[in-house]
């Protein structure tokens, strides 16, 4: 059937109307009336900000969609892992590029993911996929002082604090369990867990302060 020019115009108007409604729905969905925000600040015992602390936020009493796996990188620069701490959703793929001129030999014997990357320079291996939640401790079999951590999480909201010790997220109103973790903190992890009910439109803030100083960061040094 051939449509007239007038019919074509009508069809275009209908399509535009449908597209407009879809856009409106998407906008409404993206910023639902029940949306809220959460801002977390993590401080050291002396009140200074703690950067690179892992924050995970789990809903309590209900389920939210699992976070989408991502691609991330754990670099090796000047015989150190960069970053020291990485948090990724379960199922994510992490590559281990070696930016040094010397060879590295990366391993993990953590139950959540055991693997070994034989001596290499550059980026010869495909990324390692992390299918189970947990903390993976990384080491280098050549440079014994090198150590880093990957936190594999199923929390729908996650991240690490910035240089100001801050992390924030937009999330639906509800009841949440917030966990803060750093590999060199001396506190029990359970002492840095908080539960919070966040109401619709709330701008919730939470400040957590460690009570003990961090353990010292690893430094380059020939092993005894």
């Amino acid at each position, binding site marked *: 059937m051939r449509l007239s020019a007038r019919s074509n115009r009508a069809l275009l108007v209908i399509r535009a109307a449908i597209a407009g409604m879809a856009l409106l729905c998407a906008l409404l969905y993206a910023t639902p009336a029940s949306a809220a925000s959460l801002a977390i600040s993590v401080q050291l015992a002396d009140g200074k900000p703690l950067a690179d602390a892992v924050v995970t936020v789990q809903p309590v009493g209900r389920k939210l969609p699992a976070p989408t796996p991502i691609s991330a990188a754990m670099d090796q620069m000047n015989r150190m892992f960069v970053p020291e701490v990485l948090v990724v959703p379960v199922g994510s793929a992490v590559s281990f590029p070696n930016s040094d001129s010397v060879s590295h*030999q990366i391993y993990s014997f953590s139950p959540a993911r055991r693997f070994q990357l034989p001596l290499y320079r550059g980026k010869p291996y495909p990324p390692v996929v992390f299918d189970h939640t947990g903390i993976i401790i990384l*080491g280098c079999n*050549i440079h014994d002082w090198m150590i880093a951590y990957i936190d594999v999480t199923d929390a729908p909201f996650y991240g690490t604090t910035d240089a100001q010790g801050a992390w924030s997220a937009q999330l639906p109103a509800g009841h949440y369990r917030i966990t803060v973790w750093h590999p060199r903190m001396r506190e029990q992890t359970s002492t840095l867990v908080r539960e919070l009910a966040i109401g619709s439109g709330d701008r919730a803030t939470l400040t957590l302060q460690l009570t003990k100083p961090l353990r010292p960061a690893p*430094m380059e040094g020939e092993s005894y």
Partner: protein
Amino acid sequence: MRAATTLLFLIASALLGATVARGADWELDLDLRAVSSDAATSVLDGGYGPTRFSERQSGLQLGRLRLALNVPLGEVWKLHLDASAWDHSYRNPMGLTEAYLQFRPYPRNHLRLRVKAGGFYAPVSLENGAGGWTSPYTLSYSALSSWLAEEVRTVGLEAKVDWLGTRSDLPFDISAIGGVFGWNEVAGAALAGGGFILDDRQTPLFDRVGRFESDGARIEPFREIDGRAGYYGGLALEAPGRFVLTALRYDNRANPAAVDALEHVIAWHTTFNSVAARLEYGAGWTVIAQWLSGQTAIAPRGSDLDWPFDARYLLLSKRVGSRQRLSVRYDRFRVESRNVEPDGEQSGHGWTVAYMFNPGKSWSLTLEGLRVTSNSYIWGEEQSHPGPVTDTQVQLAVRYALGSAGY
């Protein structure tokens, strides 16, 4: 032994070509010195001086020429060869100071194993942590490290097991280390004959060292005379790059009654204990304290033919930015001669101050002043010093390093 050394050197040269071709790790260092000294000829060169360079050697000198290779053999084995040239005092222009095979399996369940076989340093010194067993703090080694460089080396097997507490909730790793060795049964002879000095030469494996004997021969520390293996064992607590605490017992188990009749060489029974600590603070500070005490004997205990000795040092170092380092070390040392007719003792102390500057990746400059005050029983034979003598040595070292060290 000369044939063995030459053979090892030829193997090292052949491996260099293969290593470079394979793109494995190697390092070539050239260290030149401008020296000003008022000391007597060094003990290592047949004199009585406690420093490396004498007054006659003031001027330009070769500090060290070093070639090191790390050849991976499969995934968890590697071959390490370290060859150096210092001066004409050794048999070959270049000699191997260390040559060993290392087994480095991946750690499992918080346990890490390291096994070495060949010729290498026992893990005693906490200051000689840089490549080629150099000190990252000063040019001259402490008195106790200088002695180890002079005549103590493991020719044998060493195993180290680390329990990786830092991979769980402990702030440190715990290590147990043990070695068995042979071919070091004349260790102690140079110390008894010349006392402690502050030097940075390392006797190549199976080479000779020290004061000239009356017949012109020099001491050959790397000899096996009685066929009995020696051992060492120790423990360490370590937070990598933060602190290390170590304790080690060494005994070469040489039978002091044993004699190599053909070559007229006797065995020296040498034992010592060492305790040491190295602490590092975040602002670039390093403190090392080490104490080593033992004795060497050429007759069974109680026969009054032994030389008890002890040496200790305290080192303080500060890294300034990423390119500069300032270090100060205080040494004390003593060797007592308990012969049938006691000769007295060699004793003294030394101050070392060093400033290091690394203008680039390949270059480094070090200015070091060393002042040693000592007296010695051996002086009585040919010199008539009334008391302690102070020797001063100032060196400016210019070092250029090439290669991809690190593996």
